């Protein structure tokens, strides 16, 4: 899930985050929405830094319109925004460490961070 990305760091590094996301396959999934969880995840400042890159990726996949053009002001309580963010899932792709360039594959929605 996209929101999990918020906590991820390349293991063994001090500042190996946020990991760049290279997407091969992405999905918006209908999953059980929990607004408190989503709000908690979104609170981490990392999300905002990556938002522009995320929009670009979605546009590249023809998925513009999934998310608003900017993070809304009071995003923690903006349920529509949280809902949209919550349902975005990377299925296949790669996470790249900004510090070392090390690449971590994502396959079938599961990242391998060894």
């Amino acid at each position: 899930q996209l929101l999990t990305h918020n906590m991820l760091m390349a293991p063994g590094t001090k500042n190996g985050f946020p990991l760049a996301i290279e997407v091969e396959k992405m999905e918006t999934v209908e999953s059980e929405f929990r607004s408190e969880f989503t709000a908690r995840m979104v609170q981490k400042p990392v999300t905002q830094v990556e938002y522009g890159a995320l929009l670009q990726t979605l546009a590249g996949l023809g998925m513009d319109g999934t998310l608003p053009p900017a993070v809304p002001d009071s995003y923690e309580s903006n349920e529509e925004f949280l809902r949209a963010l919550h349902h975005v899932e990377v299925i296949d792709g790669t996470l790249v460490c900004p510090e070392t360039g090390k690449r971590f594959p994502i396959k079938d929605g599961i990242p391998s961070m060894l």
Partner: protein
Amino acid sequence: MPPKDNVECPASLLASQAALEEQHVRRVYDAIAWQWHGTRYKAWPRVVEFVRSLPHGSLVADLGCGNGKLAPACAESGLAAVGCDFSSELVRIAAREMRMEALVADCLALPYRDASFDAALSIAVLHHISSVERRRALVSETMRVLRAGGVALFYAWALEQQEGVSNHGAGGSGGLRRTKRFAARDVLVPFHQRDSTPRRSAELEAAAGGVHVPDKRATVFQRYCH
């Protein structure tokens, strides 16, 4: 972070400890994942009690999530759980069968930022780690990813377990049917994978050193336990 090199534990020894866990923990679980999942689906009562005690909305790291059997309890308690495990086969089961947000990772070198979780679970993991240094490193890593005031539950087998008692909490059921008195501190515990088990992989079984025993109609794997 991985354990530091010191005079008592040179790099070569640490490497052999990691290799022991690679061969007798990770590869074995990869080979037995489906039968494991079929027989270890019940979350232990004391662990569930701990999960239920966490505040609603807590971010929980299940470090060594295995087949994801704690996912339902976490969801019921309104928690956001992220699971990780060394065994990619078990992670696949956790993600698909138990609908857990899960990833493949090493509990000694976690892919999480400092202080990113409210709570952590380390259930039946410590006893698969082959040295004091590595066990200490696992505990420090767990603490690293917890925010100030966060809580962790470590739950593992002990040499001192009483014979015949499998005391997982109320009712005492769930877990091993037979509890042995272990002969030594570090042992290889056999796991019999039945011939009839579906979804077996000859490749994974060979990599894990499985030995077929025709009399028992099973392939035997040796799991490392401290």
